[in-house]
């Protein structure tokens, strides 16, 4: 457990300084007051600073750990990057990278980004505790790609409906398949299914009533 102590002229100041040092927002730490500030005699003698202890919540700790692992990896790769993060609405953590090496970090068809994400997740989930979904993004790449993939899936669904024939997509990673499943879930005229194993797992879009 990583906990830090911080001092300040008031409790608020000490908390503020501590949050800055940790790089975490207020809701991801538990604050314990160790000592209240005391102005002493006329603010001259016997004054005492406020002292607080900040203990990251489980999510806070996971955020710090994931960031640390990612920073270590990027440093080993010799890449300079800013790391920002946000909590995903559906749960989990998204780490955002930006900097001069964006292209390198994305790689061909996002391969490098995917590998980076996989390795970070592997290392972080070695720690006991709740499994955390970790998503990496470089300057909005993941979001742009998700939208493109959705458009593509919708076009294929139209084609399936007009021809009545199922369509098999190229092998895709689990995240991409998930995107397609989700966007076509709302369409009751087609159904989607993944077939095959591992690297060769392919998604099939078929008319709703038809067996695969």
């Amino acid at each position, binding site marked *: 457990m990583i906990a830090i102590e911080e001092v300040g002229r008031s409790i608020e100041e000490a908390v503020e300084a501590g949050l800055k040092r940790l790089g975490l927002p207020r809701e991801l730490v538990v604050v314990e007051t160790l000592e209240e500030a005391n102005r002493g005699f006329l603010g001259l003698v016997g004054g005492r600073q406020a002292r607080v202890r900040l203990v990251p919540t489980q999510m806070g700790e996971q955020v710090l750990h994931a960031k640390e692992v990612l920073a*270590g990896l990027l440093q080993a*790769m*010799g890449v300079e990057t800013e790391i920002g993060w946000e909590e995903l609405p559906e749960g989990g953590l998204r780490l955002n990278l930006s900097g001069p090496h964006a292209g*390198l970090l994305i790689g061909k068809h996002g391969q490098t980004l995917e*590998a980076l994400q996989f*390795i970070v997740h*592997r*290392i972080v989930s070695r720690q006991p505790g709740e499994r955390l979904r970790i998503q990496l993004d470089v300057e909005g790449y993941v979001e742009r790609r998700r939208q493109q993939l959705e458009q593509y899936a919708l076009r294929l669904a139209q084609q399936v409906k007009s021809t009545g024939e199922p369509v098999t997509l190229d092998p895709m990673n689990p995240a991409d398949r998930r995107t397609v499943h989700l966007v076509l879930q709302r369409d009751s005229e087609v159904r989607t299914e993944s077939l095959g194993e591992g690297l060769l797992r392919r998604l099939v879009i078929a008319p709703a009533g038809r067996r695969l």
Partner: protein
Amino acid sequence: MKEMKELVEFIAKSLVDEPDQVRVTEVEGEKITIIELRVAPGDLGKVIGKQGRTARSIRTLLNATATKLRKRAVLEILE
């Protein structure tokens, strides 16, 4: 140059149960650098992963790093 070895070492040490047993050596050829990785026998699965996914990811990151250095590198995991 240093980066490629460091990267593999960093990842391997972060993944295994016995980081002290991780050995990485670099064999520099004319065109290709070979990075050899050795881990404790019980940790082999940790650096290879299900269907080799971990090993493949390490190779992808190694390639990205090598490209940046205008080099070519291959990773060999030795038993």
